[in-house]
């Protein structure tokens, strides 16, 4: 296969995965939230409402695409792409199995975070270009919270990189093979330092994703739909899809960094990877379990205030993450 064809195949595969994820996750969100609220969720279209999201996608595709007259036309059209493309690119370095990743990057972790940090810029552009006060407020909030929480998010994974000695996602998974003393899997979540960094990672990831309880940027009750207020049809669809796709990416990152990626506990990596398709299935299952937990949190907690959020970020999480990096560095050099 020529290199160009290979790139195209990977691109189409990732795009397909992203769109499928979006459709599945929106259905899952409705069902999970419904059940958490003792409701049914969608039940009408298809078996148990499974075709509801497909129906909604078709609706979004065929809807009138309205461009309000006061918007900044260029930026208004650019913003959905600016939000969507990084979300898609962020899939590139994820290790779905020992040898299945769109690109094998030595700096996969850094690459993924760097790409994801472009998303808030797109959201800010969307909020600004809409020339709507709610959009602008939503965009500003998104930029403020996502930029503030990128710092603890990145710092929280530094101990992992230090211990594993690599920033390649595949390498970090490979490091987690085996068990401590033959009992506990050698995953970072079972390591005290890893657990501490997971606590920071989880909170920062939820903020980064604009997930309830940190969804101030689209707070429906205050800002209509935040930065997406003026968007309709598939432009809105792209903004919406990218949000869900980011959720998958961060869940997959969490799985990769803390829960042993595609590996199963107490089973050697070779045994897992010798069964075709099993590593990918394990990885997807773990990622979706992470998403389910996020939805669980989403269905439980009320939204926090923006100033509380910023205080938590700057006054608590960043110092905590810095302290963690310090402690991890000392322990790593002195003990291990």
């Amino acid at each position, binding site marked *: 296969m020529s290199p160009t064809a290979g790139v195209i195949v990977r691109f189409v595969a990732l795009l397909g995965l992203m769109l499928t994820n979006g459709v599945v996750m929106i259905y899952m969100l409705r069902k999970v939230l419904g*059940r*958490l609220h*003792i*409701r*049914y969720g969608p039940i009408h279209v298809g078996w148990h409402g499974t075709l509801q999201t497909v129906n909604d996608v078709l609706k979004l595709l065929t809807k009138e695409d309205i461009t309000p007259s006061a918007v900044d036309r260029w930026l208004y059209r650019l913003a959905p792409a600016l939000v969507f493309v990084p979300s898609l690119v962020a899939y590139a370095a994820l290790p779905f199995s020992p040898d299945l990743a769109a690109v094998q990057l030595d700096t996969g972790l850094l690459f993924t975070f760097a790409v994801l940090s472009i998303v808030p810029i797109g959201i800010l552009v969307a909020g600004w270009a809409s020339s709507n006060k709610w959009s602008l407020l939503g965009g500003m909030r998104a930029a403020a919270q996502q930029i503030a929480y990128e710092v603890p998010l990145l710092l929280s994974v530094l101990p992992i990189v230090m211990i594993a000695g690599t920033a390649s996602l595949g390498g970090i998974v490979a490091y987690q093979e085996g068990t401590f003393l033959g009992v506990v899997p050698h995953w970072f979540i079972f390591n005290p330092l890893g657990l501490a960094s997971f606590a920071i990672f989880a909170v920062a990831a939820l903020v980064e994703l604009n997930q309830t309880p940190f969804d101030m940027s689209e707070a429906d009750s205050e800002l209509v739909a935040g930065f997406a207020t003026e968007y309709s049809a598939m432009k809105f669809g792209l903004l919406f899809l990218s949000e869900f796709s980011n959720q998958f990416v961060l869940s997959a990152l969490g799985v990769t960094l803390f829960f042993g990626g595609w590996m199963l506990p107490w089973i050697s990596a070779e045994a897992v990877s010798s069964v075709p398709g099993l590593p990918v299935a394990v990885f997807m299952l773990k990622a979706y379990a992470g998403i389910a937990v996020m939805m*669980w949190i989403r*269905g*439980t*907690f009320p939204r926090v205030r923006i100033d509380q959020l910023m205080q938590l970020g700057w006054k608590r999480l960043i110092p905590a993450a810095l302290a963690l990096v310090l402690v991890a560095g000392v322990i790593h050099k002195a003990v291990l």
Partner: protein
Amino acid sequence: MWGAGLVNGLRITLRNLRRGPIAVKYPYEKLELPERARWAVRPKYFEDGSPKCTACMTCVRTCPDHILSLDVETREDKTKHIDRFGYEIGACMMCGLCVEVCPFDAIRMSHEYELAVTDVSGLDEALLEDVDAASAQRHRAASDGTKDPESDD
């Protein structure tokens, strides 16, 4: 302990998840209404199908929303003919005062709660239209030999 409330919240929603939905799939499943539920006002009838309403106007005067109306013709022999017993259901608050006050037990609060209409004119209904109002005389005549002991004087 700090954070205990968060964990408790998660515990509660998880319990809800395992309880399963309690929602009633409304158009397909319907709950039985409580016996004294008050919905649209409806007229009552004798067994022969004639209305029990005597067109005494008590309900019309009582209604706090002024939504009941009676167009009545009084004939020479003092019997009454109801042209239209109007009921603007769109403005009715189902308070039930008209039913409380009716001296002849001629109207009731029904259990009809699916009251949506697609046309505003549907919100102004006629409870009775172009019928003779009930009267002791006529009732006696209709029920033939079997006389009502109370009205027999």
